C-alpha cells in the first residue's frame, strides 16, 4: 500500500512540470510584466531593475530553470499585484475553494447516488423516467447560466439569499448548488448504470434465495458492489469540479483560488498563476490518490502494489 502511494506520488512532479512548463512559456512569451506593473513614465533604470529581478533578460529556458530551482527551495516568487510571496497569497484562498468544493461534492454525491439508486430500483418506471430524463437534460445546462438563474430567482426576485461573496451558510448555498449541479447529472447516470449492472449479477439471486429483503439486498450487497465505478468516476470528476469552481467563483465573486487565478492571469501576475497551477494540480492528484485508496478499502480484490 505504502509502496503504491510512493510510486503514484513519484509521477506527480512530472504532471505538474508539464503544466507548469506550458503555462510558463505561454505567459512569458505573450505579455511583458514591465508594461503592466511599472507606471507608464518609468525610467529605463526601473525597467532594467525589474527585468533583472525577474530574470527577464535571460532566455526563456534559463528563466524556467531558475524558476524551477527557486520552486525546489520553496520559493515561488513574489506576487506582482500583492507585493508579497506568491504561494501564501494562493494558500490564503485555499480555504474558500475547499469549502465550496466540499459543499458541492457532498451535495452532488448524496443526491446523485440517491437519484441513481432510485432509478435503478424503479427501473423503467415513473421515478426512473423522471430522474434520468432530468439528469440527461441537466447535462446540457451551462453552469454559468444556472448560476445566473439562481441569482435571479433567489437573490434578485425572492431576496432570500445574497447574490455573491463569502460569509455565512446563506452565502454558500447558491454557489455550492451551482457547482454541484455541474457534476450531479453524471453521478446520477453512472450510479444508475452501475447499480443495474450489479443487480444482474448471480450473487443477487443467491441473496434473495437466502431470504434477504429487497432493501437489505440493495443497500448491503448491490450498492457496495456498485460503489467502485462511482468512486472511480469521482476521481475523473474532481478535475471537472475544480474547473467548474473557477467559473462558479467568478459568477458569485467567491474569494477562492479560481477567482484569484483569473484575476492574476489578466494582471500577468505570473508567479501567482504558477503557484495556483501547482496547488490545483497537487489537489487533483491527491484527490485521485485518495479515491484509489478508497477503492481498495471497499473492494478486497484490489491490491495496490
Amino acid at each position: 500500500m505504502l509502496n503504491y502511494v510512493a510510486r503514484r506520488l513519484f509521477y506527480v512532479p512530472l504532471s505538474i512540470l508539464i503544466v507548469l512548463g506550458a503555462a510558463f512559456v505561454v505567459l512569458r512569451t505573450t505579455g511583458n510584466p514591465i508594461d503592466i506593473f511599472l507606471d507608464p513614465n518609468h525610467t529605463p533604470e526601473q525597467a532594467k531593475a525589474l527585468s533583472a529581478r525577474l530574470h527577464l533578460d535571460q532566455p526563456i529556458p534559463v528563466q524556467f530553470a531558475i524558476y524551477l530551482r527557486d520552486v525546489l527551495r520553496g520559493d515561488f516568487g513574489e506576487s506582482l499585484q500583492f507585493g508579497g510571496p506568491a504561494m501564501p497569497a494562493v494558500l490564503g484562498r485555499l480555504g474558500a475553494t475547499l469549502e465550496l468544493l466540499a459543499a458541492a461534492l457532498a451535495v452532488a454525491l448524496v443526491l446523485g447516488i440517491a437519484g441513481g439508486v432510485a432509478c435503478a430500483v424503479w427501473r423503467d418506471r415513473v421515478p426512473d423516467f423522471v430522474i434520468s430524463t432530468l439528469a440527461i437534460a441537466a447535462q446540457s445546462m451551462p453552469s454559468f447560466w444556472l448560476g445566473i438563474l439562481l441569482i435571479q430567482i433567489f437573490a434578485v426576485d425572492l431576496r432570500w439569499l445574497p447574490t455573491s461573496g463569502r460569509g455565512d451558510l446563506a452565502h454558500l448555498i447558491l454557489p455550492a448548488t451551482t457547482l454541484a449541479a455541474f457534476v450531479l447529472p453524471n453521478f446520477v447516470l453512472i450510479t444508475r448504470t452501475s447499480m443495474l449492472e450489479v443487480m444482474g449479477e448471480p450473487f443477487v439471486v443467491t441473496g434473495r434465495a437466502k431470504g434477504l429483503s429487497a432493501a437489505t439486498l440493495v443497500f448491503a450487497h448491490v450498492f457496495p458492489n456498485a460503489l467502485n465505478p462511482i468512486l472511480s468516476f469521482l476521481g475523473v470528476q474532481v478535475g471537472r469540479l475544480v474547473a467548474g469552481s473557477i467559473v462558479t467563483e467568478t459568477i458569485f465573486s467567491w474569494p477562492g483560488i479560481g477567482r484569484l487565478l483569473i484575476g492574476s492571469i489578466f494582471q500577468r501576475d505570473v508567479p501567482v498563476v504558477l503557484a495556483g497551477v501547482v496547488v490545483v494540480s497537487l489537489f487533483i492528484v491527491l484527490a485521485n490518490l485518495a479515491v484509489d485508496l478508497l477503492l481498495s478499502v471497499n473492494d478486497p480484490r484490489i491490491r495496490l502494489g
Partner: protein
Amino acid sequence: MRRRLFGTRFKVGLGAGILLCICLAAIFAPYLAPYDPYQQSLVRRLKPPAFMEGGSLRNLLGTDNYGRDLLSRLIYGSRISILVGLASMALSCTIGTVAGLFAGFKGGRTEQAIMRFADAHSAFPDILLAIIMTAALGGSALNLILVLGISGWMIYARLVFGLTRSLRERSFVEAAASYGGSDRYIVFRHILPQVVPVLTVVATLQVAQMILQEAALSFLGLGLPPPAATWGNILAEGRDRLFGAPWIAHCSGVAIILVVFSVNMLGNGLREALDPKAAGAAR
C-alpha cells in the same frame, strides 16, 4: 423488451433537426437577422421581448443595454459557437486519433511516452489550461479553436489506442501484415473503419462540451472581445442587468442549452444506434 421513453430514432431525429436549423441560421445569418447585430440605438435601449409587458414586435427578443437587437445578436452568435465547437472537435479528434494510432501501433517507448503524456495532461482541468492560454494569446476565433482543440485530444488517444492495440492482436490485421500490407494500408483499411463508429459518438458529444467551454470562456471575458456577438458575451453582459433586464442573460442561456441539448440528444441517439448493447446500460 421494455420500452424506452425516447426511441433512438426520435433522439437522432430531434437532435439533428434542431442542429440543422441552428446551422442554417448560422450560415444564413445576414439574411435571417432582422437587424445589424452591432447597430446601437439609444432610444431603443433595454426593450423587453415581444412576449413580455412593454415589448413590441420590432424586437422579438428585446434589446440590450446599447439598444442592439438581441435576436440578431443571438443569430450571429450561433456562428461562433458552431464554428468553434466543430473546428475544435475536429482538431482534438485529429490529434488524438493520430497519437492513439501511433501509440497503439508502435508500442514500446512511443506508447509509453504518448500515453503517459495523455495521463499527465488529463490530470489537469482543461478549462484552467484554456483560460491561461486564451488569456495569454488573446481571444480570437482561431485561438479559441486552437486552445480548445489542444485541450481535448486525450479521450480520442485513449480510445483509438485501446482499439488499435486489441485489433492488432486479431487475426485479420496479422493476416494483412503477413501479406505485406503496409502500416498505412492496415490503418486505413482495417483499423480506422472499426474505430469510426465509436469516435463519431464521442466526437458528437464533445462538440457539446466545446460549445459550453467556448461560452464559458467568453462569459469569463476570455473569448472574442466585447462588442462581438457571442452567446457568452451576451450572457456576461446580461449578468450585470439581471435586475431590470433579465431577458438579456436568459435568451442567450436558452440558446446555449438548446444547442447543447440537441447535440447531446444526437450523440446519445447515435450511441444507441451504433451500439445497441451499450444503450441499455447508458440510457
